[in-house]
């Protein structure tokens, strides 16, 4: 966690202390509250409330307009560890964070097919190739704290994808990382994995994967009573990948 902010935004940042004209644009994202703060003092904190009070720094955020953006996590699952002891997500050296990088500094290797450095967890492979919006389900669920400890989800009416034994599987709350996670193996051997993050209240979303590079992301906006059928009127069209309509009709119930 780099800083506390109320609104996420994009802003031009000077990263290299030996190349002041090299400016890159960064995007702020919100992280789970359990994420520990940066262990070092650094030059890359938010300057939204400092503009005009201090000089524009040699490295760090520049003055000027800041375009608001939602602050959704870069990846739907945390790619940093729950503590810095995990040595996950803490990329770069103390000197780089404090005084900026040099253009001659080596670039850390990234996970294959991603732009995520290997100092972070490997991002979900099923997000490779794109993220797709699933079907919207009705009314907001409410705050994460209101969610039950154990959830059940099931696919209903998803053309092109086999349904297992009544298409239902359970999800358990993973308190450490802040998401629901569940697995379900279909009779034909394919397995589903469903992950429902609660890092962002109201905008809870889930990922479904068949473990073979296919899947999609859906937003869950309603919790249904256990084993109830979904309400067709609450659905809006969505798409998954690689087959449109995969994510289709999912009900989440407790």
């Amino acid at each position, binding site marked *: 966690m780099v*800083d*506390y902010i109320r609104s996420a935004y994009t802003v031009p940042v000077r990263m290299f202390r030996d190349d002041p004209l090299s400016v890159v644009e960064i995007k702020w994202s919100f992280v789970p509250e359990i994420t520990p*703060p940066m262990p070092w003092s*650094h030059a890359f904190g938010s300057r939204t409330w400092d503009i005009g009070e201090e*000089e524009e720094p040699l490295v760090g955020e520049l*003055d*000027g*307009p800041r375009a608001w953006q*939602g*602050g959704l996590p870069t990846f739907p699952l945390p790619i940093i560890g729950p503590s810095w002891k995990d040595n996950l997500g803490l990329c770069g050296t103390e000197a780089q964070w404090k005084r900026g990088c040099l253009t001659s500094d080596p670039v850390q290797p990234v996970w294959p097919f991603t732009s995520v450095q290997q100092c972070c967890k490997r991002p979900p492979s099923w997000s490779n190739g794109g993220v797709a919006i699933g079907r919207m389900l009705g009314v907001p669920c409410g705050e994460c704290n209101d969610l039950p400890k154990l959830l059940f989800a099931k696919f209903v009416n998803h053309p092109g994808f086999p349904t297992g034994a009544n298409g239902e599987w359970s999800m358990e709350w993973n308190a450490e990382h802040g998401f629901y996670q569940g697995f379900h193996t279909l009779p034909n051997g394919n397995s589903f994995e469903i992950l429902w993050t609660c890092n962002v209240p109201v905008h809870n979303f889930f990922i479904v994967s068949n473990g073979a590079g296919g899947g999609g992301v859906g937003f869950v906006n309603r919790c249904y009573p256990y084993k109830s059928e979904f309400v067709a009127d609450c659905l809006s069209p969505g798409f998954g990948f690689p087959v449109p309509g995969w994510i289709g009709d999912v009900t989440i119930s407790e």
Partner: protein
Amino acid sequence: MACKVTFFYEQVGSGWTETWYHASNDPKSLVKTVIDANVLKRAVDFRHPLTYLKAARATFIGQQKDSYTLSYGSDYHGSGAGLVEVGPDVVSADAVLAVDAQQFGRKRMFIRGLNDEDIRRNAVGRDVPSGALQAGLTNYINVMSQRAFCIQKITNPPTGGIAWVPVTSVKAVVGIPTQVDVKTVDDVVAPIVVGERVRFSRVPSDTLPGFPPNAVVIAVNPGGVAGVRISYSLRGGVEVFPPSMRVIRLAYEYQPIGGVAVGFFSLVANKLNIERFSAHKTGRPFGLLRGRARSKVHAH
């Protein structure tokens, strides 16, 4: 130079900050040693039980930005056991604390996240703070004073006969897309020097979006033309001619709450006075998505 210190408070879905200053040049040491448990406890103890001091951040004020943040989780929160109130209102109860100082007269601070029971209006319409609130605030200010924390005093309008100066144009600096030259009708912005600050007013938001209300001067009369150079990215790199924009020299002073801090004026006498109460809807919590926000997921 000094450090800007920000306390992050939250109260059930609302968040706000409190800003102090300190003569220290080491933000990490400031947060880890000067802002100790005694400071943190006194900062929040007199507030509502559901008011939490979530974190403290110190930022070195200077060209080499250096910022350090420490989170406290739920370690420090207000007390107030035995109060009638069992939950917070939709608004935060606030008090306006006036600090009197010989150097700058009176400076007012919002003290937020209080107990309703501590701020009552009496029969003749006078806001009367409870004894607990007065004692708690005195303890808080005292400990900040002992640690040489300061409050910021903005001198505006500045002394010396300097007045608002009309701005004739704002033009991107060739080759430096993050800087602009603010041209004025004459050089009466002087005697400002590089590193000092100016304040702008009547900035047209349509042609100069996000233009800083205050800015540090990078150059005076750049290119021999009256005006100042500041940091701002003028999109398109064009020249804008705002019809009624003005600029004035601005002076900040950091005054200690009490005691004597190196490089700062000391307060010969200070007096604390709770002037009035209010209730405000505070901001949303830090690190959460805005409730009314819509999210979009784009295929990449």
